């Protein structure tokens, strides 16, 4: 039996950095680069795939444009 789900969450960069530090193999290189180079308090949109295990597949910084288009 398999289960796969892709979802995104807004997180502080420091939270994503902890995830990457704990499980460096469970993050794409591109996402890892952006996450690890960000200031801890920066807001980021982190996309994860939940299969086995959970993996970060994409990271973006939250921009004013994202906020303007949220509602």
């Amino acid at each position: 039996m398999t289960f796969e789900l892709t979802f995104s969450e807004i997180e502080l960069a420091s939270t994503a950095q902890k995830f990457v530090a704990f499980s460096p193999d469970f993050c794409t290189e591109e996402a890892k680069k952006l996450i690890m180079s960000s200031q801890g308090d920066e807001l980021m949109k982190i996309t994860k795939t939940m299969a086995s295990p959970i993996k970060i597949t994409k990271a973006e910084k939250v921009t004013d444009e994202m906020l303007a288009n949220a509602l």
Partner: protein
Amino acid sequence: MVKVTYSHRLLIDYDFVKWISTCSGRLKIDIIKWMLRTNKNSKDNTEEQIVILDEDFNKLCAEGIIKDNDIMRGCMFSCDLPSKLRKIAPLIDLGEFNKLPIEFRRLILGTLLTSKPPFQSIFMTTKESKLKHVSPSAYSTFLSRITKLQINNEEEAIIVLREFFTKYSMEHER
């Protein structure tokens, strides 16, 4: 990572979020940013400093008012009130509870929020919606006993959110 202790939990409703969606560009961006920071950098209630009823959140999504679910879920915690009540009061008749007007269920949630730190909450809504929550005499009697829950309209809410963001900014600068 900056962690901030805020003076109040914040409860918002459908009308408040809908009002934000009608705000002009810069104000809308600022309000959403203030809410994101308040929710994400809260010391006592990380991710849950700002709360909304599940029902209100789902209605905002269904009507397309919420366009970016990820951003807005970052701004607020969507609370399944019946499940929350079932945990603290297993014998509660949820059938009867769910028949209560949504305005009263919001006030109950606002009151529940005062049971945990910081023990005070503000229900942020619109001027029009505020009347629906304070005018019926049954609600005003209920509210008169709940001194730690206040109800703010849009203009008062902006002041609170700006103050909370300023507090975060000052902690961040240290």
